């Protein structure tokens, strides 16, 4: 295992984190929040110190880097990123318990949006900014950012592929252009551009700048940390609709935007995943609207709330405009299923991913046909191209790991004695990086009631969900750490 190389990566990543903390520090200074100024200064100093030690210790690393190193590196990076990223919350006294602070920042970086805070509006602005910004950074991935700005050690090496694969969601991650650095740069350029457009649209609706930026961060990373106690419910219908549209946009595979830039409209229009993603969303909105007849005063209002909640849950954002925990069971069942489906591969969203759902359905269909015609040779296709058997195997393995982890976490947090619905939806909401669940963890409530043990289980769930299980799973495998 190439520890030195990993140390260098993590060191560089921490430098990036420290730099990104500066705006939060400036906001705190500007607002004159003394406790958070101190907290940010101390955190930045601490992070820079750790980074310097790592970079100093890990000079002269070799360039041997393989899939195993890539996965371990991503898993470790996110752990360390979160451990140091939660320092401002803890040091400023905004969140007194360390486990709570850790939970909050992991929820931020993994773009979950599950909070342990009951009173948000009273928090210092710098802290609020850092909380929302963690979504933005975690959405596209901090290592992808690192790849975009540095040559990451060996410029001519292909190993950076492992980092992109481990950090970008989806069953079959590929580059957009031959050079990794350019690929990462294109992804971030699109991401930044979309975020800015989002801010502009929010400002047009009369939202104050600070709130618009924070809300856009939450939307872009499909995170869901609000800056109001009632999330988005207090804003005008226009702003709610803008949020709905942008949540959906950030849940689309970014490759589609790149193809649009290249004017390959046909490929985008015919993309099976995009069609499934939009189709499922539209169908769910329709069904929920039908189910909610009479719940709200007008049809327009019903439609708006249905669309917002569907977009929020499906893209795994987790904003809310209404307490959907009060909705009829059928609507809640649809939302729960949407939690599993999740957004598209290659987006900032979480969940099982539409493309995986497609592959699982297709391989299932093949297995059924195989019973009827045992000799029939069948190839699973996606967008007309044959899918490699290895990808199908990986997808099925992913499904199995996904189910086992959900079940295990469900059992573990049940110790706290909440209802079945609460526990199941809490696990689903964390593992799929959504945020709010039902009942005790519903949109008006939060995760503060869970015991520390349950919180740690949920933290691991969030990390596993964001990094697509294997980078976290591999950290707990004995053979990873064996000398080879």
């Amino acid at each position: 295992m190439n520890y030195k190389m990993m140390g260098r990566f993590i060191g560089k990543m921490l430098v990036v984190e420290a730099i990104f903390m500066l705006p939060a520090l400036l906001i705190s200074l500007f607002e004159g929040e003394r406790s958070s100024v101190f907290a940010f200064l101390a955190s930045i100093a601490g992070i820079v110190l750790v980074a310097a030690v790592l970079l100093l210790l890990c000079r002269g690393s070799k360039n041997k880097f393989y899939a195993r190193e890539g996965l371990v590196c991503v898993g470790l990076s996110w752990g360390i990123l979160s451990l140091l990223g939660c320092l401002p919350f803890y040091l400023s006294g905004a969140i007194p318990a360390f486990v709570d602070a850790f939970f909050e920042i992991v929820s931020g970086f993994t773009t979950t949006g599950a909070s342990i805070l009951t009173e948000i509006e009273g928090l210092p602005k710098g802290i609020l900014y850092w909380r929302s910004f963690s979504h933005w950074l975690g959405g596209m991935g901090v290592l992808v950012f690192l790849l975009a700005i540095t040559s990451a050690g060996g410029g001519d090496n292909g190993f950076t592929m492992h980092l992109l694969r481990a950090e970008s969601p989806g069953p079959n991650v590929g580059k957009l252009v031959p050079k990794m650095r350019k690929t990462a740069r294109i992804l971030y350029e699109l991401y930044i551009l979309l975020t800015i457009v989002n801010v502009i649209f929010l400002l047009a609706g009369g939202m104050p700048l600070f709130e618009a930026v924070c809300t856009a961060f939450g939307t872009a990373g499909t995170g869901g940390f609000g800056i109001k106690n009632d999330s988005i419910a207090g804003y005008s219908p226009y702003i709610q609709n803008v949020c709905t549209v942008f949540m959906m946009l950030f849940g689309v595979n970014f490759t589609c935007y790149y193809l649009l830039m290249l004017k390959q409209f046909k490929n985008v229009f015919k993309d099976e995943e995009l069609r499934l993603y939009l189709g499922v969303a539209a169908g769910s909105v329709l069904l929920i609207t039908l189910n909610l007849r009479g719940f709200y005063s007008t049809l327009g209002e019903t439609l708006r709330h249905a669309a917002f909640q569907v977009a929020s849950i499906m893209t795994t954002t987790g904003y809310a405009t209404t307490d959907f925990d009060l909705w009829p069971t059928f609507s809640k069942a649809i939302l729960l299923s949407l939690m599993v489906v999740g957004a598209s591969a290659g987006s900032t969203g979480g969940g099982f991913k539409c493309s995986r759902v497609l592959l699982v359905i297709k391989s299932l269909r093949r297995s059924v046909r195989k019973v009827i015609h045992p000799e029939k040779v069948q190839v699973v296709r996606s967008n007309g191209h044959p899918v490699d058997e290895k990808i199908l195997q990986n997808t099925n393995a992913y499904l199995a790991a996904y189910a086992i982890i959900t079940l295990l976490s469900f059992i573990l947090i049940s110790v706290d004695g909440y209802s079945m619905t609460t526990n199941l939806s809490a696990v689903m909401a964390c593992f799929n990086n959504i945020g709010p669940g039902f009942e005790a963890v519903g949109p008006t409530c939060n995760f503060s009631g869970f015991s520390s043990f349950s919180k740690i289980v949920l933290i691991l769930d969030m990390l596993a969900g964001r990094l697509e299980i294997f980078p976290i799973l591999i950290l707990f495998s004995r053979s990873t750490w064996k000398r080879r």
Partner: protein
Amino acid sequence: MKIIVAGDGKLGSMLTRQLSAEGYDLTLIDANPKQLESSEERFDIMVVQGNCASMTVLEQAGVDEAELLIAATGADEINLLCCMTAHGMNPRLHTIARVRNPEYTDQIYRMRDMFALSMTVNPEKQAAVEIERLLKYPGFLKRDTFAKGRVEIVELRIDAKNRLCNVALNDMNSIVKCKILICAVLRNGTAIAPDGNFVIQEGDRIFVTAAAKELTLLLKNLGVITHKVKRVILCGGSRVSFYLAKLLNRSGIGVQIIERNPEKCVQLAAMLPEADIIQGDASSQFILEREGISNCDALVTLTGLDELNMIISLYGAECGVPQVITKLGRFDNTNILGNLSLGSIISPKELCSNIIVRYVRAMKNQTGAAQTVYKIADGQAEAAEFLVDEGTRYLGKPLKELHLKKNVLVACITRGATQEIPNGDSYFEKNDTVIIVTNGKKGIYQLNDIFE
């Protein structure tokens, strides 16, 4: 610059390594997904799986924006078809095809025009030409020519009898008595840029810049005994053997080819009337003895198996054959071979890849580009030839006043018909040809890149 490489074989992956390291946007096409996956893991490139002559695959690989296509699949016909198709899709595209079937060699120039190819490469023929050059000057392990053949960088192995052994470079002139420059030394697998106090030891491989006409004198003064090659044994009847036998026969050198496959022997005998074709296993010592290995002038091992070539060469060196040349097709790691007495090592893919890299650099930078590029010292150093033109900085200024980059060495200046091994007082003049030796890490793409 966007480059497409079709075919991820020996030459393809070598090119991928070199070109992606130089920072080009590379897309690799191959039919074998396993092969592609391992390439994608090793290099920062994009891969496309499929038949490189198919238009959809070429389109996927981005042929519209590419500037160069290199077709290096196993089949000549596919390479040609691939280049033609791609050129049809994008008329501005430069195309390079590997064509190595001997039956096409005579028509290659006409085919180049007809199919609008920018260049064709033939690794086996290239190897044969290279081997012939080595056989003409026994004593050198490798020869790279510059300035239209007037200057060479030659590789020598220092043995105990060599007069340079245990001599510091400052004291070298009294021994060699001709103008040479030792531009790199390979000791225990690492390349060293020597200074005046450097002492040459036994087992070093030295890389010497010298005028071509002084090579004979150099060998004589160093005490390397050479005699003209009159009889060569070639092991294996491969394509390289065929080209080489033809070249050697033309200059009146006797050739014996040992080949195991009877049908191939008949074919070779038909095509090479002047060569002796022996049907038998070249790895058998009995056959080698019977064919007179102990008193032949040179042994060239050219079978398709690298291991076999190495074993036969070792045996030849043991028997006291004055010059041994080993062809290695797949083997990259020449580091561990340094201590074996394999003689000169010839790698067809490397020769071809050097030619193509030179072409690519010239394309990238039409004026002032390197005219010749060779990798020396097991690829750890690079020797490139440049033409001095009006765009070159510091014309006429002595080198000692200039700040050259670290690890850059001006190895030779050719002015008109004279060659000069430069010292501090040397200067560049328009229309000079200069040879620059670097450690190859930072690309020197034009002459001005050598200045700080």
